[in-house]
């Protein structure tokens, strides 16, 4: 068997602020080259913690208590600071959640889009400008010169997210972590952005970790899915198989709950309390934590 791009093995972590409450419980998963994997769960399920661990930006309140994250065989958690920061932004990049706050309001698009090219690849101003134009063309932005000269507030939310996607793929990374990149957008724009990420990912041969709480989004973009609850992997497998023949009662309940199970009232059938009770019993949480 060939080496996986990312291999998370038995990762456990606790929150130092929450009285040592576990945030990840013995999580294992792998990601192959060029694959899109969904990381699904309600808030607090641990999906963001995994994403942050991959990017080397775990908050100081989270402490890893065991396990490894291997990226091409190298342990990210034990990597020296310098090596890690060299890797980040070049081989592992981020598409953030909210395009409103992810672009600096005081800097022009060109400066922000070319930061990585200039800092990581040492490109000159003219070369970076050419590359930026190419990238904008790739994410289907017309008038690239005008957009490069613009400030973020002059562009729409969808436009800004396209720029952030272009920026994430600018250095041909091996892994892109997409942190709920469509949550802040309205539904029509969401679809376009999902299609764009998929196309970029295929064109660059990049693997993507797609963090979301929306099974509908997962169905559209992911090859494989990992479902988490309270820091534990509940089910893991190919998207199609999992959505049509779920193995765990929680998964089926989520599918029944409709496209937006995170808002029970909007779903068709809210996840029954009995399912949560069973989940907690399986994981071993005694008291219900609100």
């Amino acid at each position, binding site marked *: 068997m060939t080496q996986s791009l990312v291999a998370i093995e038995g990762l456990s972590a606790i929150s130092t602020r929450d009285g040592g409450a576990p945030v990840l419980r013995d999580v294992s998963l792998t990601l192959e080259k060029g694959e899109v994997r969904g990381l699904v769960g309600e808030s607090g399920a641990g999906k963001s913690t995994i994403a942050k661990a991959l*990017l080397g*930006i775990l908050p*100081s309140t989270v402490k890893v208590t065991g396990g490894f994250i291997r990226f091409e065989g190298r342990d990210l958690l034990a990597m020296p600071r310098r090596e890690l*920061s*060299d890797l*980040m*932004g*070049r081989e592992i*990049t*981020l598409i*953030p*959640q*909210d395009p409103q*706050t*992810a*672009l*600096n*309001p*005081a*800097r022009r698009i060109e400066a*922000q889009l070319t*930061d*990585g090219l200039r*800092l*990581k690849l040492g490109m000159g101003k003219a070369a970076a400008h050419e590359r930026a134009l190419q990238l904008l063309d790739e994410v289907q932005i017309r008038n690239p010169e005008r957009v490069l000269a613009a*400030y973020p*507030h*002059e562009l729409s939310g969808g436009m800004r997210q396209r720029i*952030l996607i272009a*920026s994430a793929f600018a250095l041909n990374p091996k892994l892109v972590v997409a942190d709920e990149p469509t949550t802040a957008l309205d539904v029509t724009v969401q679809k376009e952005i999902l299609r764009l990420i998929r196309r970029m990912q295929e064109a660059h041969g990049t693997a993507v970790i797609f963090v979301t709480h929306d099974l509908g989004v997962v169905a559209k973009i992911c090859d494989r899915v990992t479902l988490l609850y309270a820091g534990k992997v509940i089910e893991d497998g190919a998207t199609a198989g999992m959505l049509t023949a779920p193995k765990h009662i929680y998964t089926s309940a989520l599918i029944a709950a409709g496209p937006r199970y995170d808002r029970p009232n909007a779903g068709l059938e809210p996840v029954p309390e009995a399912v949560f009770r069973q989940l907690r019993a399986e994981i071993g949480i005694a008291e219900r934590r609100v």
Partner: protein
Amino acid sequence: MTASDLLNRLFMAVLTLMGVAVIVFCLLRIVPGDPIAMMISPSATPADIAALRAHYGLDLGLPQQFGIWFMDVLKGNFGTSISQRRDVMELIGERLPATLELAFAALVFGVLAGGVIATLGTLARRTTLDPALDFINGLFLAVPDFVWALALVLLLGVFWPVFPLSGRIDPTLSTYFHTDFYLIESLVTFKFAAFGDLIAHMVMPMLALGLPLAAIVVRTLKEALAEAMVQDYVLLARLKGMSPLRLVLQEALRNAVGPTLTLTGVQFTFMIGGTVIVERIFSYPGLGNMAIDAVINRDLPLIQGIVLTFGAIFILVNILVDLIAGWLNPRGAAHG
């Protein structure tokens, strides 16, 4: 700010200034003690005194006095100083540059020192240095310019006498200046001996006025920077390999200066008010020092002129701050 906003502000400014004028005028007419009595010689006859009163318009009714005085002020004529027997405008023109140079030096010092310390504090956040810095800054925030001035007199004037205790320039230098902006003139005409001496005289009053400002800049800027540093765009830039210093200066600072700038403007107006007592303590020959002398001498025309000058500066600075804030933040206009 649109043109009509600006016009509106200017109109309100004129109204405020008129209010200041009326209050000063009324206040000074109830001053006990006859200003004429202080300037006559013992040999003056009652007729002399009456003539003098008529000369200064003190024999008329109050509304008439105000009318005449106000029309004169509009023409830029503040009358003649009773204690110095010279034109009030001329006296103010001589002293105002000294005060302006001092105030601007203190402003530059306060903003620079505050900006550097806030940046360093932001770089050192989550270390033990950070709470220590906040604690010291809290003490600095509590100390007003008056106490700073006195403490500086003691520390840098007496115990470790590195700076001259009083005045603006060493009179033995006998440098001739064409303008009253000594500091600027000495710099552009390359009179470095005079420039150095002027700076040495200015250091202590400048520190007294600038340190409280620096403390306020540190607090507001640090808060704003802390807020900006947790934004996603800073995280993205960090992932792209930007150094911590560049993160603060290039990514966070520009988005954080807004509130600091507005507050600095407000503080600057307070600081101009603070020059009065600080100039007094260091015998610095500015407008504020002359103002206290004028009050002690019951010199009505001079007091009126000085107070109106301060009021005009205050209002002007406020309008300028609004203009700069609007100009620095184009998004405010874009978002309506």
